[in-house]
């Protein structure tokens, strides 16, 4: 429960309000999908998913400046200190990807927790039959990791990008992320989907995948609900008998569906 000291090694700007921080390695072995509680000294603590690992094992987090704590974290310069707890939670089911058609659907900052997945699936050890990334963002200026999108494409992944609206200079697709789904993208009987983004986007994406024949048990979503302690004690992220911080944040959809239906939380 006590944060350990961490230090920022590198800071890079992704978009107008999104920054990526690489921390000094400290032996942390977080898996794709897991998160850390990052503590901005004197400001507060928030859960941030792992968006990558440096070659020597330093944890990488991509942070959107959306509130007091995330703004303080996103503003940390190389050499600055912060508190780190974790890693916490469940990871993406990478072992299940072997031999299957993997559809990764990301919305907005939701691409960050999926970046390690795409790196693994398109890397040398990637064993998926096919990999497709369907990525939706608010506008062209809000797209994360443009160079990596090209790299994944060059490594054989289908990478489709769409934005909600565009003004001049954008020759890509405009529309909702579900419009990127189409027949032939995956074979339902040997498919796997991993989705991360705003809950509304995830609900519609799941519905569209299931309409195309993907079983609920092949779909994984990453939930984010008011996580405070990260160890299932405080109850802030409790949904029924489930604690999102401890039992998630990655859930198989047939288990997550009743949780997503809880409107009061």
């Amino acid at each position, binding site marked *: 429960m006590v944060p350990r000291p961490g230090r920022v090694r590198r800071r890079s700007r992704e978009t107008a309000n999104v920054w990526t921080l690489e921390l000094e390695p400290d032996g942390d072995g977080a898996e794709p999908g897991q998160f850390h509680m990052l503590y901005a000294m004197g400001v507060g603590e928030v859960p941030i998913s792992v968006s990558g690992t440096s070659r020597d094992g330093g944890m990488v987090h991509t942070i959107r400046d959306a509130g007091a704590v995330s703004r303080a974290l996103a503003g940390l310069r190389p050499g600055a200190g912060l508190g780190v707890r974790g890693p916490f939670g469940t990871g993406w089911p990478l072992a299940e990807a072997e031999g299957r058609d993997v559809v990764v659907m990301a919305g*907005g900052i939701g691409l960050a927790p999926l970046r390690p997945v795409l790196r693994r699936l398109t890397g040398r050890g990637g064993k998926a039959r096919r990999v497709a990334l369907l990525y939706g963002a608010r506008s062209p200026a809000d797209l994360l990791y443009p160079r990596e999108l090209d790299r994944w494409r060059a490594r054989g992944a289908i990478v489709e990008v769409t934005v909600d609206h565009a003004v001049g200079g954008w020759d890509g697709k405009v529309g909702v992320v579900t419009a990127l789904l189409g027949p032939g993208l995956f074979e339902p009987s040997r498919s796997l989907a991993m989705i991360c983004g705003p809950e509304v986007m995830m609900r519609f994406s799941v519905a569209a995948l299931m309409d195309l024949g993907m079983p609920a048990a092949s779909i994984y979503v990453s939930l984010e609900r008011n996580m405070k302690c990260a160890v299932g004690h405080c109850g802030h992220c409790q949904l029924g008998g489930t604690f999102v911080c401890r039992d998630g944040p990655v859930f198989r959809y047939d288990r997550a569906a009743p949780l997503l239906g809880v409107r009061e939380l």
Partner: protein
Amino acid sequence: MTDDLAERGREGLKRILAEQPFLAGLDAPHLELLHGCASNVRFETGAFLLREGEPANAFYLLREGRVALEIHAPGGPPVVFQTLGPGEVVGVSWLVPPYRWSYDARALEPVRAVGLDAACLRRKCDADHHLGYAMMTRFVPLLVGRLQATRMQILDVYGHHG
């Protein structure tokens, strides 16, 4: 010879119509009726298929190329709110009065499409309600899909929570 070419052209257009995913399942007599209102059309990059405020005289089934649906605003470039590609339909306002386009549609690259004369098709739908129903059962899901997409875009989910 000229008649032969014209005949081959007509048969070619009939086949193209039958291959359109949007018209899948339409029976032969109705395809024949549609064929009477159809023509092959091309648009160069930057050309407008539709202009906001103009009469909705035709709609298009895209065969090749992409099209941007956009709204223009004074003092700035137009805002693109949707792009469409092969197999998709450009133009739904031809179905409902006052039959005017409510946005622009601009070719982002060379476009080949089947154009359907809207006045011709409306007349045929009035005369043959089965054809009208067949059109409605295709256009209503399209409209509902676009309404849902618009709702998602208006919610601005990535802006607030993403």
